[in-house]
């Protein structure tokens, strides 16, 4: 049985082609997006930058939630997932690049290269200036240079550190013949610390990096909603990679029950996401408070996102519910691949719905080279990084206390 993944030239070429398309999309997007609509002051290639933010966040979120999912397996001392542990680890390996891209976008915004974040414009704090906004002045302390970037750097460094640590120790455990699994149990303790840290910072990160785009609006459900979106995207990525690898003749130790469990996760986390999406909407719709409804009013009535908003919700809720409800469907790889790839794109559309209305208002496009090519480019980069990291280590962990249990998983 083949225990080492080979990143074939064919797969590499596929990734290079996607990245090439992405590069064309970047240049095309920047050049084509040069007009300044009259009603939007400070428009500087906003559509280009917003697309960059959507894709950076979406793919960063996949690897971040992958790291969370890996830590969850450690902390819960789960046995079912050990045969796919290397796949989860490979997905987390994109995290440094994703976080780097997010930091780049935030720093460039602070230097005034783009104007996605209204609160980064110094003019909004100057009394007498046309852009002066007392509402943002109230939040000046929260968005001050030291506090905002101090927080951002803290998330990035701590998350990146834990991701490297889990990976390093996992490879270390392979080589050590230690029968007390000391390296593994070190990871279990680190995972518990990471989960506590992640619980607070994932919410704070979503306020800082995404919710602050709609700077006049706040929602307490937003952090959870963003987190659930990242989590389901990560589960889909892991499921699709596992099924693909099995189809290529790798990972033969992965049981049908492991695939079934991944299907259960896909079903359950889709429900978590749908619940949070709907509850955020319903509470705001019901109370009907002007400061709160702006978010949905802008999207549904003002800027013409009605169909993307409802479609993202309808597909991401109904596809997993209808098609993955039965046990047989969750054990059928065609069902999982179909539902998984559909809701993968619609969760990308969900991030699009979070970012675009706040940044380009009604000047949005979906099926244009800028959007499509940049998404494909990021997908290529993500796949390239994940598959190269998959090839760097044996596909099956060695010397793990629950490996045998996982190889005989039966549900």
């Amino acid at each position, binding site marked *: 049985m083949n225990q080492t993944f080979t990143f074939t030239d064919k797969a590499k070429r596929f990734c290079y082609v996607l990245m090439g398309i992405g590069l064309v999309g970047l240049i095309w997007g920047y050049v084509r997006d040069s007009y300044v609509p009259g009603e939007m002051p400070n428009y500087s290639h906003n559509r280009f930058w917003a697309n960059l933010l959507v894709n950076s966040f979406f793919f960063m979120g996949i690897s971040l939630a992958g790291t969370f999912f890996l830590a969850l397996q450690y902390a819960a001392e789960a046995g079912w997932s050990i045969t796919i542990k290397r796949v989860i680890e490979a997905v987390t390996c994109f995290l440094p690049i994703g976080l780097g891209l997010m930091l780049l976008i935030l720093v460039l915004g602070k230097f005034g290269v783009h104007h996605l974040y209204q609160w980064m414009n110094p003019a909004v704090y100057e009394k007498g200036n046309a852009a002066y906004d007392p509402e943002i002045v109230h939040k000046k302390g929260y968005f001050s240079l030291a506090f905002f970037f101090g927080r951002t750097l803290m998330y990035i460094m701590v998350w990146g550190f834990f991701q490297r640590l889990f990976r390093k120790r996992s490879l270390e455990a392979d080589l050590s013949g230690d029968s007390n699994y000391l390296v593994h149990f070190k990871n279990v303790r680190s995972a518990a610390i990471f989960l506590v840290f992640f619980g607070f910072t994932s919410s704070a990160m979503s306020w800082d990096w995404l919710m602050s785009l709609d700077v006049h609006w706040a929602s307490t459900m937003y952090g959870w909603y963003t987190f659930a979106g990242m989590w389901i995207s990560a589960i889909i990525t892991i499921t699709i990679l596992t099924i693909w690898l099995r189809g290529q003749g790798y990972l033969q130790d992965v049981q049908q029950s492991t695939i079934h469990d991944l299907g259960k996760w896909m079903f359950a986390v889709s429900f978590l996401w749908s619940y949070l999406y*709907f509850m955020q*909407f*319903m509470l705001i*719709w*019901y*109370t*009907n408070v002007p400061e709160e409804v702006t978010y949905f009013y802008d999207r549904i009535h003002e800027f013409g996102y009605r169909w993307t908003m409802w479609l993202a919700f309808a597909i991401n809720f109904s596809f997993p519910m209808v098609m993955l*409800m*039965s*046990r047989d469907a969750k054990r059928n790889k065609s069902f999982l691949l179909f539902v998984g790839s559909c809701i993968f794109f619609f969760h990308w559309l969900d991030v699009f719905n979070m970012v675009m209305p706040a940044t380009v208002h009604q000047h949005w496009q979906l099926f244009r080279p800028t959007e499509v090519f940049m998404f494909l480019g990021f997908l290529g980069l993500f796949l390239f990084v994940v598959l190269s990291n998959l090839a760097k280590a044996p596909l099956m962990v060695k010397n793990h206390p629950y490996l045998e249990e996982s190889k005989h998983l*039966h*549900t």
Partner: protein
Amino acid sequence: MSKVTVHGIYDDDEQLKNGAIKIVGMGLHVKEVFSPFPVHGIDPIIGVKRTLLPITSFIYGCTGALLATWMMWYMMISDWPTEIGGKPNFTYLVNWPAFIPITFESTVLCAAHGMAITFFIRSWLMPGVTPKNPDLRTTDNKFLMLLEVNQDDLGRVQSALKETGASEVNVQ
């Protein structure tokens, strides 16, 4: 020919599974297995069919959703139209988001209770019924395989049970 009842008692669930595979391989039927906890993977070995409980749960869930819809429509729209929070009244469809939480709760309530009650009735578990458990130790730490075999087969069944690690074999 007269049948005898055999109790093969095991200390471990893996040994019990191996025993069941051996007995079934001999062409005999395992009537029932009693265990202190669910033994994963025993069902296909002894030929227990998949239960219809999930389907009943789906039906109860749909019933719950319909009941809640009918209840709220009758209370809020038909019998006594109520305006809350300035939302358009006299219509169910325009107000649909407000009705989702109760529909959801009612679906879960009916599905869960319906399924539990069906399970209790179907397996006849309720106060006052005689326990079907042949050996009380299976509620603690023993795994019991119940067989009904012909007198002729008794010898080879006893040795098969012993070989696969049964700690006791009781014949009645």
